[in-house]
C-alpha cells in the first residue's frame, strides 16, 4: 500500500517511506498547534491577570454570561470532537463515504456552535455588556466589569475564528474524501485537520469554566 501511495506521487523524495513522511507531518502539526496554544496563552494570561487585579468585578461580570448556551456549546464541541475522531478512524480504513458523513456532522456542529455564540453576542450587545467605553450596562458596574467583557470578546472571538477556519479545513477534507482520496496508506489531511479541530475543543474546555462559571 505504501508503494501505491508513492505511485500516486504523495511520497516526497526526501522521505524513505509514507510512514516517516506522515510522522514528520504530524510532528509539524503539533509544533504549529504549540504556537496556537501560546497565542491563546497570552489571552489566558490577560484573563488571569485582570481577574487577579479585579476579582470582584470579574466575579460579578461573569454572572452575566449565558451559562446554558455556554454549556450547550461545550456539549456540541465535545461531540464534534468525537465525530472527527471517528472520521479519522474511517479514513485510515479507506471508508471515504463514512468520512464524508462524519465530517458533515462535525461541520454542522461547528455551525451550531457559531449560531449559539452569535445569540450570546447579540444578547450582550443588546444589554450593552461590551468592552471598554462601549460598556453601558447599568445592572453591574465597577472596576474590572467592562474588562471582563474585553477579555470575553477577545477570547471567544479568537476561538470562534478558529472554529470557522476549522470548518473550512474540514470542508476541504470532506471534498477530498468524497473523491475517494483517503485510505490505509494515506490519511494525513484528515489526521491533521482533526488535530486542529481537537485543539479548538481543548481550548473551549478551559474557556467554558473560566468565562462562564468562575
Amino acid at each position: 500500500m505504501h508503494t501505491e501511495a508513492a505511485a500516486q506521487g504523495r511520497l516526497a523524495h526526501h522521505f524513505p517511506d509514507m510512514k516517516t513522511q506522515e510522522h514528520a507531518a504530524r510532528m509539524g502539526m503539533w509544533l504549529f498547534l504549540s504556537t496556537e496554544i501560546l497565542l491563546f496563552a497570552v489571552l489566558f494570561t490577560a484573563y488571569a491577570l485582570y481577574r487577579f487585579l479585579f476579582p470582584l468585578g470579574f466575579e460579578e461580570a461573569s454572572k452575566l454570561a449565558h451559562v446554558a448556551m455556554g454549556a450547550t456549546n461545550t456539549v456540541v464541541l465535545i461531540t464534534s470532537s468525537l465525530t472527527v475522531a471517528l472520521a479519522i478512524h474511517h479514513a485510515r480504513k479507506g471508508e471515504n463515504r463514512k468520512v464524508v458523513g462524519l465530517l458533515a456532522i462535525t461541520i454542522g456542529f461547528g455551525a451550531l456552535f457559531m449560531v449559539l455564540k452569535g445569540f450570546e453576542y447579540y444578547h450582550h450587545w443588546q444589554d450593552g455588556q461590551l468592552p471598554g467605553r462601549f460598556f453601558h450596562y447599568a445592572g453591574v458596574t465597577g472596576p474590572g466589569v467592562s474588562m471582563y467583557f474585553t477579555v470575553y470578546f477577545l477570547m471567544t472571538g479568537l476561538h470562534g475564528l478558529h472554529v470557522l477556519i476549522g470548518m473550512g479545513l474540514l470542508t476541504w477534507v470532506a471534498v477530498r474524501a468524497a473523491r475517494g482520496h483517503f485510505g490505509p496508506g494515506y490519511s494525513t489531511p484528515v489526521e491533521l485537520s482533526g488535530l486542529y479541530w481537537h485543539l479548538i475543543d481543548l481550548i473551549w474546555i478551559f474557556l467554558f469554566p473560566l468565562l462562564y462559571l468562575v
Partner: protein
Amino acid sequence: MTATTHSEGKHLGPTQYVLVWVALMVLTGVTLAVWKTHLSYSARVVLALSIATVKAALVAIFFMHLWEEKGVARLVLVVSAVMVTLLIGLTLADNATRYPFANPPYSESWMDAPHRKDAPPMQTEPGPVRTSPATKSEHPGGH
C-alpha cells in the same frame, strides 16, 4: 511492532472514542453540578479547573492520538503546557508582589494599600508598603 501506517499496534477504535466521549460528557455535568454546590468559592474554582485539565488530557491522549504517537511529538504539548504555566504563574507572581500603587488604579491591591487617598504613588516612604486588610478602612482625613 506490527507496523501499519500509524506506528505501534496500540490503535484506538470507535469503542474507545465513544467511552472517552461519555467520560467527557460526565465530567462536563460534574463541573456544572459542583458549581451549584455550597462549597467555598476557591474550592469550586480549583475543582472546575482540575476537571477541565482532566478533560483536556482525555482529548489530547485519545482524540488527538498522543496514545499512539511516538517520539518527540508527544513532548510538544507537555512543553507548551509548561510554558503556559510559567507565563501565567510568573505574570501573577509579578503583580502579586508589586508595590500596590504599581498595580492599576482601583485594582484590589491598590484599594487595599494604606493611605491611598493621601499618598500619591510617587511620594511615599521607601520600601514596599505592606498591604493589610486592617488598614483598609482607615482613611485619615485631611492632607
